[in-house]
């Protein structure tokens, strides 16, 4: 099986793509990521700006029309959404593997 070379995504990139399933500008992305992560991931503007630039170049997100000319609005692309799904499956698999081999669970089954 050929794996997507963009995988695995970093936690930051995963959250940004997830935030862009609906159109958003920079600050809305920051707010969505912070709330989705329960406050654990706080994006600083310099880091977000660089990440958006990279995702645009990788064609994972695209610019859409913005009501505010001073704030660009982005949306996930078809290929970005596919990559996101593939990474979610990759992580779901990891979680399944972890649950199968968890020591306390094995112990629980053997008793």
């Amino acid at each position, binding site marked *: 099986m050929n794996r997507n070379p963009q995988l695995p995504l970093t936690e930051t990139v995963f959250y940004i793509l997830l935030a862009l399933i609906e159109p958003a500008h920079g*600050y809305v992305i920051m707010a969505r990521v912070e709330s989705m992560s329960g406050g654990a991931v706080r994006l*600083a503007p*310099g880091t977000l700006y660089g990440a958006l630039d990279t995702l645009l170049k990788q064609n994972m997100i695209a610019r859409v029309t913005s009501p505010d000319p001073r704030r660009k609005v982005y949306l996930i692309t078809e290929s970005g959404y596919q990559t996101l799904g593939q990474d979610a499956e990759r992580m779901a698999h990891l979680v399944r593997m972890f649950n199968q081999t968890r020591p306390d669970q094995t112990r629980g089954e053997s008793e």
Partner: protein
Amino acid sequence: MRIFKMFVDFDKEEAWLNEMAGRGQLVTRAGLLYTFAPIPPGSAVIRVDHQPSMKAEDFDDYRSLFADAGWQHLAGTRGGGEQYFASFSGEPNVDIFSENGSKAQRYRRAIATTSALLLPLFTITVALWSVWREGIGNLLSPRDWYLTPGLWQREGWEFARAFAFETPFVALRVGGPAFLIASCLVMLALIAYQSVLYRRAVARANG
């Protein structure tokens, strides 16, 4: 207040600007000649980014993003180069980067800026090199720079007059190329130093 200073290392520049802010001086213009305006001592945290030249709308978007996140743009132009931001939140450890990897990318962008300046300069220098070689002779031997026949055999006033007459032409013919070559060398050294800083920052980011 105005201070003349030069930095390549963003961390050192930030440290100095924060030291100034701690003493109540907020940077309002930067890059070689730094201009400051008074603020309550210690009320601001300064951070530095580097960006390539941007279209007006891109620069607006860039500054809006930082403003929305609580960072006031202090200095820097859309023509590219360093961008200076201040946070007045009172939190001393705030940063414009939340990951060290993205913080290291500042240096990569700075290297790209310097390279973009060096490339045309280097091309011109190489293109003109063959022309200069004939006109200048040996760049390291000043006597070759003067083309007046028998100049160095003349004496007294006759020599002084001919020497003084030709010197402005020599300054143009030799000074121009020497300046271009020196500029190329300075920029090469700058790129080398920026590369060292970039690698150091990446190493720090990776643990």
